[in-house]
């Protein structure tokens, strides 16, 4: 159950550390990190602390291939028991159907620039299905504009079925507050922003209060985990690594570091709601993400939500994401590595067939696949265009895991 690619890393790491002459070379840190991640993934139980640390520390999870392995662990997802591809029914009778279709069909910026329109269209249809599938399974959750920005970020990395599983978990935990019938809880989360600023830079805080700028400039940052506002997908992914491994309030701490980072600009702006909103809502594309991520963590440690809640008369019980976070984190502690999971899954006799070729794809699509259906092929091409070389690596891994893993990606 060890991939060739993994063997390479083992090999590299069998060198004693002092032989790693390239400690000064940036690459060595990277190799070290790759090894740590792989080690954490095969530990039993999975070493979730190390994975979290790796996701938050410099460079995040490094490659999409690793993201496909680590992201599900961060959310306690068994990749051998992924939800099935949604059938056609998923589009019937959902109150948010029109809004979802509208938002997904016009969200073209979120797909890689070179992707042919036909391939993008296939992924967009998958995106609609993914969103509706999760919403249908969770009648307590309500779609919001921006939810599609989260979903597309997942889809482009992990494929349809794993995206459903991840989105489902995220929606019930990290994003839960945004999915109420009203946005009162979202507002509540936004209300943590100014108290953080107040702790660090009173002058800036007071300036923003005087301008009455409010916090809506950070709304799309928060509810899309910045996916809506960053033009470089790699930056979005870097932040997703970080947020998937962090407390649900972390996007607000990052928002605070961004405002603090632009402190001079803000103070030089006219003290007027429109002007300050205008300035802040346009996020510079060349932000020093690694630095800001580190600062956000520091702020979080120094001024944890509980402390802010006390000082700013915020009631943390108002947030479902915050109140369920501890239980969520506990649930990630006892995961088996994939090699064991696969064996266990196979051992469930009745399950075996479910993971066969026919079952991995819904019946009609399975047949279509056999006939070389154009749509499915396009989806695969779409994914490979997105993933580039990484697809080769993952295919290799998947061969080792068994073809069902490969199928689950699509």
């Amino acid at each position: 159950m060890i991939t060739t690619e993994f063997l390479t890393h083992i090999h590299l790491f069998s060198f004693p550390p002092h032989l790693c002459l390239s400690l000064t070379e940036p690459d060595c840190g990277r190799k070290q990190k790759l090894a740590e991640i792989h080690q954490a993934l095969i530990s039993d139980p999975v070493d979730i602390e190390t994975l979290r640390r790796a996701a938050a520390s410099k460079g995040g999870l490094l490659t999409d291939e690793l993201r496909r392995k680590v992201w599900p662990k961060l959310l306690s997802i068994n990749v051998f028991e992924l939800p099935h591809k949604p059938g056609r029914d998923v589009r019937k009778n959902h109150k948010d159907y029109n809004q979802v279709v509208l938002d997904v069909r016009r969200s073209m910026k979120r797909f890689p620039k070179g992707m042919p329109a036909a391939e993008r269209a296939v992924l967009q249809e998958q995106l609609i299905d993914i969103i509706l599938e999760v919403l249908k399974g969770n009648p307590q959750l309500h779609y919001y504009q921006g939810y599609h920005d989260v979903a597309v970020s997942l889809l482009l990395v992990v494929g349809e079925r794993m995206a459903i599983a991840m989105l489902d978990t995220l929606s019930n935990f990290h994003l839960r507050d945004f999915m109420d019938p009203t946005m009162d809880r979202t507002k509540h989360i936004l209300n943590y922003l100014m108290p953080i600023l107040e702790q660090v830079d009173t002058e800036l805080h007071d300036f923003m209060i005087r301008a009455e700028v409010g916090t809506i400039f950070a709304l799309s940052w928060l509810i899309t985990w910045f996916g809506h506002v960053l033009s470089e997908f790699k930056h979005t992914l870097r932040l997703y690594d970080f947020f998937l491994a962090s407390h649900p309030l972390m996007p607000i701490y990052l928002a605070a570091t961004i405002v603090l980072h632009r402190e001079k600009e803000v103070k030089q702006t006219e003290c007027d709601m429109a002007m300050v909103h205008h300035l802040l809502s346009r996020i510079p594309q060349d932000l020093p993400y690694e630095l800001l991520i580190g600062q956000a963590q520091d702020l979080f440690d120094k001024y944890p939500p509980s402390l802010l809640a006390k000082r700013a008369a915020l009631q943390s019980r108002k947030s479902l994401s915050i109140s369920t976070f501890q239980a969520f984190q506990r649930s990630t502690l006892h995961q088996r590595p994939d090699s064991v999971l696969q064996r266990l899954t196979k051992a469930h006799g009745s399950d075996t067939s479910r993971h066969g070729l026919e079952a991995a794809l819904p019946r009609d699509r399975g047949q279509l696949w056999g006939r070389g259906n154009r749509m499915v092929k396009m989806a695969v091409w779409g994914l490979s265009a997105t993933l580039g070389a990484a697809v080769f690596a993952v295919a290799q891994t998947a061969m080792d895991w068994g073809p069902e893993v490969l199928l689950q990606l699509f």
Partner: protein
Amino acid sequence: MAEGGSSVEFSSSLANSNLPPPRTRIFKIIVIGDSGVGKTCLTYRFCAGKFPEKTEATIGVDFRERLVEIDGEKIKIQLWDTAGQERFRKSMVQHYYRNVHAVVFVYDVTNAASFRSLPAWIEECKQHALGTEVPRIIVGNKCDLQESIQVGTDVAQQFADTHSLPLFETSAKNPNSQGEGNCGGGNSDHVEAIFMTVAHKLKSQKPLVLSQPAEGSGGTINLSRGRDDGGDGARSWACSSC
């Protein structure tokens, strides 16, 4: 209101012998309506002069502005482009109704539901104290899609009349597809004329609005005052032929 305060400050400082740098008045216009009717496209068209190739869902509130010249005065027109999804406007967009000088209600002529939502939008504005004293207009967008029109001009005009609101039909995509509507004015496009009409209306109103130091005048356009008669009736300041 804040405007009152700053306008007093403005006029008294003008009376001073050492004149402060000229101030640019700002007209704040909020654009509201259902999701997908084209609010982002319309505001983009006015501020950037073209139809955006791609628009994304608007999350919360976006802001666009443009400097124009009306009767020799440079004026900054700020457009607040809002999210159409109900959940956003109930708790998020509220903040932006304050200090707004005019309201543009948008519906999609190819989507009857978006037209049927107008009374709710108008009502919501009233709740934020944006009633008849604030210039408000209705814009029916996507007129270029002639073959899929669901809301006829007569129905829309009737509705506009009962609310005493001027009605404009246009297309953010192809604003000149309107033919020879006399709103278009010279070679400037129709979307532009609509927002400029609102700006003229605001300029003809008495109270001075929030001001800020003048800036470099990128993208200034000139529009003569010809069509602005300063009347109060809906028809009298809008172009009834649209």
